């Protein structure tokens, strides 16, 4: 059997990192939009 454990670990870490980074990007973008909406709504309510 070929010794390929390093590639296997690299692929699993790379894929996991991509999924986590994309989810984090969604959270960051959403937080930014929600903060802006809240700021505008406070402005309208005044």
């Amino acid at each position, binding site marked *: *059997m070929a*010794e390929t454990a390093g590639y296997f670990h690299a692929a699993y870490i790379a894929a996991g990192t991509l999924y986590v980074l994309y989810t984090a990007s969604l959270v960051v973008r959403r937080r930014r939009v929600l903060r802006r909406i809240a700021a505008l709504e*406070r402005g*309208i309510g005044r």
Partner: protein
Amino acid sequence: MTTPRARAEGAPGRPLAEVAPARPALIDGWIVAAAVAVIAAYVRAIWFTPPEATQGLAQKIYYLHLPAALNAYLAFGVVFVTSIVYLWLRDDRADRVAEASAEVGLLFTTVVLTTGPIWGKPIWGTWWTWDARLTLTLFLWFIYAGYIVLRGAIIEPALRARYSAVLGILGALLIPFIHMSVYLFRTLHPMPIVLKPSAPSLPPEMLHTLLFSFAAFVLVYLALVRARYRLGLERVRLAELEASLEGGR
């Protein structure tokens, strides 16, 4: 006693604007369920599935690579259908689903294009080769990266939705060619061993792990599309608020 709804709407005599708006959860139950499913798929693939006899542990990259490829097909298939629906009915919801699905499909294609070369290096002896399957998948990535850039470049919503629907439909037409490329051209990429007319040629324990992993990543697809759709909806609300403030000046 004050009900939660009354609390959200503001106590009597207190202006609504002073009440802090309810903060929506940034990570919802779908994302948590998808994360748990992916962790379970990783555990099953790493510790509870035997390695293949000749490739060794690198063969286990299959349980990430194929589900990512199938979910990319699914995602761009949804872009294809919802883009047609948008052009037909001019329904903004269809455009938002297409936008969300294209972005998540691009993520899955990125995973395919990352895990593929990492698997190819020990088995083929090279990270990359310009064969039909790999090159067409790279073209698919460029088309949907272009789709995302196009959406960011057009400000007028109806124009943006119409142009991106056309590109979304044309991009998805590449998928049958990508799937058939291993039959149509001489390529290094192996023939399908699951998605083929005859029965899958995988031992049952490997096939079950593959199906489990595929189901987990379908859940990831649904959770991310849902979250991205919500972001799109909130961006519309923000644009409306900004427009109403501009109009009020």
